[in-house]
């Protein structure tokens, strides 16, 4: 009962945050809406029993990545955006496609897929999660970290080139 109420409350918060992200005209307000979405998603993960993922979601997305977004927006001192006329593509292609997407999702949910049911058994999946990450999926994990390293090096190179010889 209380889980259902919480689910719908969090889902409502997430969806309205996402809508507000698009509708808001000021970049900071959009970024704040995105943070709301992230935190609501973390709440949904908690309801599914994935405590570790929920905490990491808040720490990484809401606490680190979005801080950088807000930071950059503050540094650039970006003002409110101007509205342009809505592109025709949105009306002719976007709307039908979104209807198709919604219908597809509804059909997939209604057909009774069990993929989204709550985690069962292990109450603290942190240990099993790290076992999986560092044994079974160690190679993809290391590949991902190399990918991130390449991105960092790329950013460093770009930043250095602007300033000339230092």
């Amino acid at each position, binding site marked *: 009962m209380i889980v259902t109420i919480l689910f719908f409350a969090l889902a409502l918060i997430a969806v309205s945050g996402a809508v507000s992200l698009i509708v808001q005209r000021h970049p900071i307000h959009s970024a*704040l809406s995105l943070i709301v979405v992230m935190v609501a998603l973390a709440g949904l993960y908690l309801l599914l029993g994935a405590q*570790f993922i929920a*905490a990491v979601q808040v720490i990484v997305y*809401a*606490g680190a990545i979005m*801080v950088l977004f807000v*930071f950059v927006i503050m540094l650039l001192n970006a003002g409110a955006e101007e509205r342009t006329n809505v592109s025709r593509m949105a009306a002719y292609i976007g709307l039908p496609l979104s209807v198709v997407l919604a219908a597809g999702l509804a059909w997939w949910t209604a057909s009774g897929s069990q993929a989204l049911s709550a985690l069962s058994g292990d109450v603290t999946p942190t240990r099993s999660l790290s076992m999986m990450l560092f044994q079974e999926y160690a190679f993809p994990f290391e590949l991902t970290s190399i990918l991130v390293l390449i991105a960092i090096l790329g950013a460093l190179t770009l930043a250095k080139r602007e300033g000339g010889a230092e």
Partner: protein
Amino acid sequence: MSDFLAQHSLLFSSVVKAAIMIFVVLTALAYLTWFERKVVAHIQSRWGPYRAGPHGLLQPLADGLKFITKEDPMPLGADKFVYLLAPFLALSLALTALALIPFGPQTVTLFGRATPLGITDLNLGLLFLFALTSLGVYGVALAGWASNSKYPLLGGLRSSAQMVSYELSLTLSVVGVLLMAGSFSLRDIINAQQGWQLHFLPRWNLFAGPLPQLLGFFCYFTSAVAETNRAPFDLAEAEQELVGGFHTEYSSMKFAMFFMAEYANMITVSCLATILFFGGWLSPFPAAGAWAWTRFIPTAVFIIAGISLIVDGIRYSTVYGRIVLPVLGLVLCAVGVFVAMPFAIWYAQGPFWFLTKVLAFLFVYVWVRGTLPRLRYDQLMGLGWKVLLPVSLANVVLTSLALLVAHR
């Protein structure tokens, strides 16, 4: 009625505990300002607050009244919603973090339900604590931006950069402790530190385990002072450069809320330092054997404090003080006697040692503020990225190596 209470005992006990906690914490925050002003004053050979009440004990109340009655203007062109949101965000996140701190080993029975001392006990408590503190940046950053003024903007930018940088070493410095305890639960981390070595040294993480966490503690406390934007890392509110930093355009209660958030964060960080490195509520003495008398230390401390208050109070310069201080001393003596009672003595040990350690850390906070000069901004960033981050990473590697060797 009692059926209803028993049925929803989780809800009611949580609400009651949260209400008590809010009351205690807000009072503690108010008196922490008094404590800080007194300690800094004595470091600088001054008296500190002395006029409002005996020994300035009513100063927090006077400050609070002043904050409430002040005019509350909003700068022109400020982003109204974000400007109002920022102080609430800062304070509510700081107070929520305290809900995860356990204060003692025992449970209390509320509405027929045994609940732990402390509002909640999560098995990922430390991780959720970091999640909450990582959101604390927004209060400062948004306050600086929404004020639509250059000094707050610079202060907000500085402090968000600082907090993001130091969060890394703060989180990494704790990993050593996590590896030794094998759990994210604060209760488990404390329980893993039980026992003695060499018959006198408690097995606290600071100086026990496969690798004593001295490096980890150094990194943790330095990063924590920086993370809470306190001197000598208070670049965000450097008066000489930035007027007041991110809260320049705030006044009245909204300004007070930022300060309350800062002090609440100080308490959280001190609690965490106590739990992670100093054995939490564990007494530094064994409970049994030749050291059994140490269970009367809380009583002795309270009674000595009470008697010295009475002696000081009788000779106080104002009549009001000559009445209030001895009464306070008597109350302290009564608490001391109560704590020695057979039914209270075991309940009192955990919280007493916990709060004593936390108070010691808060004193160090103020002491550091009173003695060290502020760092330059590039020194601050250099310290975070070039010293603390490598040292805490090395601590992680060394602790894992030591654990591997120890378990071989």
